[in-house]
């Protein structure tokens, strides 16, 4: 694995003036540690700012009361700091349904992401290292399915699931989330590149069965890719909006995404609902905080193993 300079060293560098004299600074500039470029840094930082701006706006406005939100400038704080009041109110509003939505989302995400990642690893391994009848057709169909628009599926899925009595239950969200064609594709590519066939053959010669070879030899080597697929499943299930929108009628089974939009629509629908934009914004912030925390903590594992070269080495 290539050495990644520690954050402390980077922070130390950025606080001082850029080192201008090649080869004469305190740190030697090598292929792995070239001179930092101010131009590149500024250009990358501008894009980083664009990525941060809406999130900063969200954090600032989650601290405002509804009155302040309507009256004050978007990027300035309001007259009163109402973040805590807003959070309390989010959990109280409509008999505390927000905590129910949060638990539902956690259920869908944890079960869905775990199962889909394991199925993708199993299938990707079969595609990369094993033969079976109809492999080419299978690949063609599954990869083709990545380009099928969600709506082409969602409406028939809804009718099919309604026929099976699965709508308005967690299964209507869980079963579709178990299948992640993109995850299968990633696992297939990673397995083909990162797991040496010779090692598998050796395990089999030593008497290990196929499943044991997969579990003991291949799966540990696939762990970095597994975390990547887990992350993508996690994000796509957490972000899923359309499927729960049509599958679930009972707000008690809603995930956060559908719930928040229901609150958002309260004010705009025919004017008979109270405007609760402060709650919409605060609940949006609460929705992305666990996601960002999970994302960043998963990213630590996953950055170190991102490069295929590192896995191979």
């Amino acid at each position, binding site marked *: 694995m290539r050495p990644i300079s520690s954050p402390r060293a980077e922070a130390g560098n950025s606080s001082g003036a850029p080192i201008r004299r090649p080869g004469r600074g305190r740190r030697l500039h090598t292929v792995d540690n070239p001179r930092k470029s101010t131009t590149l840094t500024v250009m990358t930082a501008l894009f980083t700012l664009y990525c941060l701006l809406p999130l900063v706006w969200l954090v600032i406005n989650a601290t405002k009361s509804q009155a302040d939100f309507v009256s004050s400038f978007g990027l300035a704080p309001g007259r009163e700091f109402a973040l805590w009041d807003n959070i309390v109110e989010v959990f109280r509003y409509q008999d505390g349904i927000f905590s129910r939505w949060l638990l539902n989302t956690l259920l869908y995400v944890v079960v869905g992401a775990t199962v889909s990642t394991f199925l993708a690893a199993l299938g990707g391994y079969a595609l990369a290292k*094993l033969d079976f009848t109809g492999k080419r057709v299978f690949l063609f169909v599954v990869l083709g399915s990545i380009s099928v628009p969600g709506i082409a599926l969602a*409406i028939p899925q809804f009718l099919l699931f309604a026929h099976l009595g699965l709508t308005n239950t967690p299964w209507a969200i869980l079963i579709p989330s178990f299948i992640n064609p993109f995850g299968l594709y990633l696992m297939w590519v990673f397995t083909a590149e990162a797991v040496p066939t010779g090692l598998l053959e050796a395990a089999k010669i030593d008497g290990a069965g196929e499943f044991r070879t997969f579990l003991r030899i291949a799966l540990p080597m696939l762990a970095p890719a597994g975390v990547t697929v887990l992350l993508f499943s996690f994000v796509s299930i957490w972000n899923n909006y359309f499927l729960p929108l049509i599958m679930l009628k009972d707000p008690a089974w809603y995930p956060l995404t559908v719930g928040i939009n229901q609150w958002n629509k309260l004010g705009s629908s025919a004017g008979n609902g109270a405007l609760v934009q402060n709650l919409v914004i605060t609940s949006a912030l609460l929705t992305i905080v666990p996601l960002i925390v999970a994302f960043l903590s998963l990213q630590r594992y996953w950055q170190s193993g991102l490069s295929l070269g590192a896995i191979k080495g």
Partner: protein
Amino acid sequence: MDLARRFDVTPSAMAPPDEERHPAPAGKRRKSRAGLAFIAPFGALFALVFIVPILYAAYLSLFQDKLVGGTTFVGFANYGKLFRDPQFWDGVGRVVRFTLVQVPIMLFFSMALALALDSMRVHGTRFMRATIFLPYAVPAIVSTLMWGFLLGVKYGLFGSLNRALGTDIDPFAPGTTLISIGLMVTWAFTGFNMLIFYAALKAVPRELYEAAAIDGANEFQVVRAIKLPALRGSLVVTIIFSIIGTFQMFNEPQILPTMVAGSGVTTFYTPNLYAYNLAFTGSQQGYAAALALVMAAITIAVAYAVQIRGLRNASHQ
């Protein structure tokens, strides 16, 4: 371990009689059966979630819901109607125009950022890499809410700007809404594509850079001769995924009208939004199913065309 043993597929237990008579090499036979066992759970669920619903959609597309007479079989009439439906083609034209402008801009930024971060010449590389990817983790509903408020003239920054300067800029006027949506989509997916490029760059053997340094190659020569060729495969993948994503556009135009009035977002703004409105508010499920299938066919055709072109170019190398 017990679990592992239980799932083991031994050659004797499952050999089909046909293969007994014409024995293939033992290893290959075992591989084939194990392969089927490994792929079976994914395959079975895949059929339930993808294949059966698509067949069902194809079946539904042959029927029409009529006020008088209920649901009747109409053959391919829905498809004929669709090809003459100006609202459908309006949506298709919009997503195609959107794709032609937004995807090249987004992928240019993704690639430039991946190259910049991989060069290790940027201060705070780790922080910026994480931050640029962060929007991908934000649900479309939240991102549409944020950008809708942020750009909106009622509560947002442009409202403040207009009041301060006496201007009349509206990012969600009918003529500019699509640009604002482009800003949201680029925000959400640049980091995702950057990461695909970044992973490809990380897979380049370090020895190549060292060899290039010994040969006295400068930064731009390294980018042109080593890094850009290494990105070719990822470029094909990102183009395909981006086209699929923009052709399916739904969340932003579905949520925006609840936030801003007069944004010009119609019920047929994108093909997917049209299909949703047909099925769930117009109760024309057969017509919606036909639309969805035609849109899927168009998307798959474009994706395969890009892939074949990409592969052909790669083989010319």
